[in-house]
């Protein structure tokens, strides 16, 4: 296995972890207005992700940093070509990041509503746009030589990419719902509502994800480039979506969360596997494709980065896991979740 390939896998893994982690905190945010009926419930819902969301978000910074260092050409071409989408994601993440912090600072209903709306939109946009970006990445963009984007600003949106966006959105909401099943006290009103939301969004997610894969497979012949096991990963995603249903029906909270996590893992893997050996294909001419090999950094940098990753990634995963362990207790509504001190 060559070093650029190792780093391609690591980038894919970083995105997978990011979607897995921030997927549920986006989801909790998106469900909040629908599940919470009063301020105590809103606080409880914020409390379920309070100590985690910030650390989750760092994974996207790492994903970007890893692409920058390991695939500089990819980094420039990706971010420049989908400039408006990334600008929107950044604005959304700004609003969302401060919303958690600022919301609790002033005891005023309108103030809180303002930040609730901000964090809702701040979660909605990235949850949708990451799907659009991934779909565009897989399908390819009108790239000229050296990864120069020659399309228009609205070329990012077509049936396939919009379906991709809706699929990630629904998947994240479902993931957020199953996360809440783990984090909220069982038998409470909130827990029941989260369960119902999981069932509803499980249905949406199943239809949308399967529709996305169907369009990609059948109409656009996209997910075919990975040889023998071309069906394996989409099938994995499908099996897990089915498993979510089973787990929800049997009221096995942990299993349902594992199932949504695996769905996200398999879906992200499908995206990156179908990219291989490209990182950003050109729709104009295959010779303009950015590939793993032609956009990678030199071996020295990649070796160095591998050592850095080898040392620090386990450490990061270790203390983040410990963080989840420390705050493992289910959140109570009356105590205002983990929001104390704010």
């Amino acid at each position, binding site marked *: 296995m060559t070093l650029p390939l190792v780093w391609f896998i690591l980038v894919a893994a970083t995105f997978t972890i990011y979607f897995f982690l921030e997927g549920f905190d986006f989801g909790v945010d998106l469900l909040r207005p629908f599940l919470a009926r009063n301020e105590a419930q809103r606080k409880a819902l914020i409390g379920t992700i309070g100590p985690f969301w910030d650390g989750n978000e760092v994974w996207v910074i790492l994903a970007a940093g890893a692409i*920058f260092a390991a695939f500089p050409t990819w980094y420039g071409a990706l971010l420049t070509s989908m400039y408006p989408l990334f600008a929107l994601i950044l604005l959304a993440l700004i609003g969302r990041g401060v919303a958690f912090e600022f919301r609790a600072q002033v*005891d005023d209903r309108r103030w809180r509503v303002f930040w609730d709306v901000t964090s809702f939109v701040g979660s909605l946009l990235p949850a949708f746009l990451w799907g659009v970006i991934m779909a565009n990445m897989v399908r390819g963009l009108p790239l000229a030589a050296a990864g120069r984007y020659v399309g228009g600003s609205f070329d990012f949106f077509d049936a396939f990419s919009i379906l991709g966006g809706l699929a990630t959105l629904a998947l994240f909401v479902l993931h957020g719902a199953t996360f809440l099943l783990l984090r909220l006290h069982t038998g409470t009103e909130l827990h029941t509502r989260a369960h119902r939301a999981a069932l509803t969004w499980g249905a949406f997610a199943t239809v949308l994800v399967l529709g996305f894969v169907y369009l990609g497979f059948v109409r656009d012949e996209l997910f075919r480039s990975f040889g023998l096991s071309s069906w394996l990963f989409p099938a994995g995603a499908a099996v897990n979506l089915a498993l979510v249903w089973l787990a929800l029906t049997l009221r096995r909270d942990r299993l349902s969360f594992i199932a949504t996590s695996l769905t996200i893992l398999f879906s992200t893997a499908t995206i990156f596997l179908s990219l291989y050996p490209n990182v950003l294909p050109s729709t104009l001419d295959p010779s303009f494709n950015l590939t793993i090999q032609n956009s990678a950094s030199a071996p020295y940098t990649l070796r160095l980065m591998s050592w850095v990753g080898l040392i620090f990634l386990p450490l990061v995963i270790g203390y983040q896991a410990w963080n989840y362990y420390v*705050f493992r207790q289910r959140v109570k509504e009356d105590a205002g979740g983990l929001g104390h001190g704010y």
Partner: protein
Amino acid sequence: MTELFGFSTLDLSRFQFATTSIFHYFFVPFTVGFALIIAIFQTIAYRTQSPRMENLTRFFGHLFFINFAVGVVTGIVQEFQFGMNWSVFSNFVGNIFGVPLALEVLMAFFLESTFLGLWWFGRDRLPRWATLASIWIVALGTSISAFWIIIANAWMQHPVGYTIQNGQAVMTDFWAVVFNPKGLEWFAHLWTGSLTVGAFFVLAVSAYHLRRKHETDAFLVSFKVALVVALAGSAGVILAGHEQGQSAVRDQPMKYAAFSALWDTPTGKGMPESLVAFPSNSQGRNTFELSVPYVGSLLAFNNFSSQAKGLHELQAESVRKYGPGNYIPYVWPVYWAFRIMVGLGGVMLLTALYFAWRWRAGKLADPGRLYPLLLAMPLAPHLANFSGWIATEMGRQPWVVQGLLRTGDAVSSLRPLPVLLSLAAFWVVYLLLIGLDVYLLTRTARAGMHAPDVEAQGMPAPHYLPEGGTL
């Protein structure tokens, strides 16, 4: 490249980058310096087991949190901007520049975000030593983060440990990049400068409450700690700055000449330093100048005889080396920004010395006439930082990577409209954020400590409560 309202994609991208960097930099040094001070408070609380100190730590921690959030979100924009607006640059330097950036995330961002949460939310779940360790890890993380970003920036100003292959700068020696002498000097300058940002903020808040006679014992402790940090920071930032000036003469002589508005290489003995000058790029001279003899040599070389090269001579050298073009930066903003920075450094040191003298005289607790000055002082280090970045970044134009890549060649091939729209959106959001940040900081800082002394009643660990906080 087309234009929009007379602005090219290059102009807009430069403006957007400056906006993001400067805005981000209102918060970064704050977290670096402030985290360290809070860690010291937490240590005092840990050792004295004083609930009052615990509350003080909590109070300042609350202020820290408000700032931290804005710092994080603006940092994400900073990183993505390299690829979005400067894809040629990203492609050219990614092999090298991307590494410290990735290291920053792995070694610092994860630490900060995880352990800050553990420190704040985890105090009733973790042993006391772990809470203390958490805040020190946060403080360490903020400094590590600053270190890597400065190493990345230093490489752009003074490239080392690389070769050029297929139009990309390729790393040949990681340790040369890490131990870039420029980077270490700048880190010293930036880190001590960050101490002043945190320190003068804590001084201002403490002075306000000392004057109000609110929790005097606790705020006297915070005042003293911040004063020591302010002294060390302002003395350190001046010393490190002096070193930097001297190395700029050697490594970035054009920038140094712009700092001093030195158009012609001095003739005769020694080099003067201008006190006031009105530089004009179009005329290639200063339209007004007031200078002192020999001081320039003293500042730049520690003697009275050496001379630096003037802008005109350096321009001729650059043309010989890099081909035709204008290599002289826009002098007046560089010159004045540099002077504002230096002047504010002096003001900070004098202020810290004055209060140190009062402390020695045993008069710290009685609010003197100069206390109102302290309420304005948090602005000083911010303005100094702002000016410093203007001076150092405008001073190296037209280069984005000194001698290797010009700013004009580094920009993405974007149409101006999306850049203008994103620029406008970022401005709106940033202005809103800075307004909210100042509002919330002032509000929370003025409210003071409100923690109920619940520990005595056998309640869970005391949590500092902001005014009006309904929990």
